[in-house]
Structures are given as structure tokens and as C-alpha cells.
């Protein structure tokens, strides 16, 4: 089994998985701490059907830890998902 960690703080989970003996890689559009294995535009990859260009991710037995999946990262403004707003009535 191999784990893939996506989005922010993916490195934290990747490191802990590796310490527990589970091979893991992380993916993020940023490389804030200089430890990201793959710097990719994840939103673009998702739109494209999930990393079709990354061969190893076609293995169905892989586990994907989308942890944390902070969609607020994609917003230039404060995410309404985290603002406690009721958007539609």
C-alpha cells in the first residue's frame, strides 16, 4: 500500500505515515517548507480526472489521504465554507 497526501499539511501526514512504515508521497501547489514531493496544481489535476499524468496514481490499490483538503486554499478571499455563513436559502 502506498499513501498519497494532498493539499496543505500533507507533509505532516506523509512524514508520520513513513515513520509508521507506510510509503507515502505528498502533493501540493505550494512548497512552503521545502519538503513537498510533488509540486502540482491539484485543482487542475482533479479537473483532468485525477492526475492522469502521474503514472503511479493509476494503481487502484493506493490509498489517498486528502488530508487536509482545505478548499479555502483555492480562494483568494475568505472561504464562505469556513465563515459560518448560510449561503443559500
Amino acid at each position: 500500500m502506498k499513501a498519497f497526501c494532498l493539499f496543505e499539511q500533507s507533509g505532516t501526514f506523509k512524514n508520520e505515515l513513513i515513520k509508521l512504515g507506510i510509503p507515502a508521497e505528498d502533493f501540493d501547489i505550494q512548497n512552503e517548507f521545502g519538503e513537498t514531493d510533488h509540486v502540482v496544481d491539484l485543482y487542475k489535476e482533479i479537473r483532468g480526472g485525477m492526475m492522469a499524468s502521474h503514472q503511479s496514481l493509476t494503481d487502484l490499490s493506493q490509498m489517498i489521504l486528502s488530508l487536509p483538503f482545505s478548499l479555502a486554499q483555492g480562494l483568494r478571499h475568505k472561504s464562505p465554507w469556513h465563515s459560518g455563513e448560510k449561503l443559500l436559502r
Partner: protein
Amino acid sequence: MAFRGETAQMKKWTDKQKLVYCMKLHEELSENYELISKLACIALDRGFRMVIENPANRPHYLNSYWCIKPSMVDKDRRENGDYSVKPTQFWFFNCEPKQTLLFEPIEEVEYRVNALSKPPEGMSRATMRSMIHPQYARRFIKQYIL
């Protein structure tokens, strides 16, 4: 507050400025909703196990407008050794959260109230708010995934 046009920065805006801004916000919201739904569809189609995490503040858009219910909610991350309480919800796809008991001591972690704590040098407040303590990550993996 942004959608209601009630943020501090919007006080002096015209109605049209607010409307244009809100349309952009809603467009981004719609795109993000589509992305998370597509990610879930891909996981379900391909059959790989996936865990998605998001804050569990109430009300939350995904709780109100997503057809997938969270598999579990962690109401207090401090209990598992994280920096702050920060209620968090998790969605498990193609698997269920396990309920493994851990008999390990929890190391004391400095409590952070994100609105008040000063971020470490070179780190933004936004980054600090999103940080997860390695102890929490490790315990989460061992309790719910392995």
C-alpha cells in the same frame, strides 16, 4: 459576512461593488464544490480509499449542501495531542474509520488560540492556523486508518 456585504472592508463599497465581489465569491464557491465532488466521484469510480478533512464549524456549506455525510467528527483535537480544539470532520470513501484503541501517553502540546497566538518567525497566521501537530497526525492514522 462577505456574502452579506457586512465585512469591515466593504463598509464604504457601493451596492454594485458588493454584488460584483459576491458574484466572484460565489463563482469560486461553485468551482470548489465541483472540485470536491469530482474528487469524490473519482475515488468512488476507481475504488481507492480516500479520507477528506474539513473544519466542522456550524453551519458548514458541505453539511448543508453536500449529499455525502461526514463519517466522523473530531470535536476536540486537543484530546489527541493537537495544538488547538478546532472541530474537524472527516469523510471516508471506500473504507470506514476504524476504532482502534491507543494506549499511548499523549505528550503535552502548547495550546494555541489561533486568533491570539503569535505565529513563529517566518510563518503566516494562516499557515499557523492550518498546522497539525505530528502527534495528532500519528494518532489519527493509528486510530482510524491502520
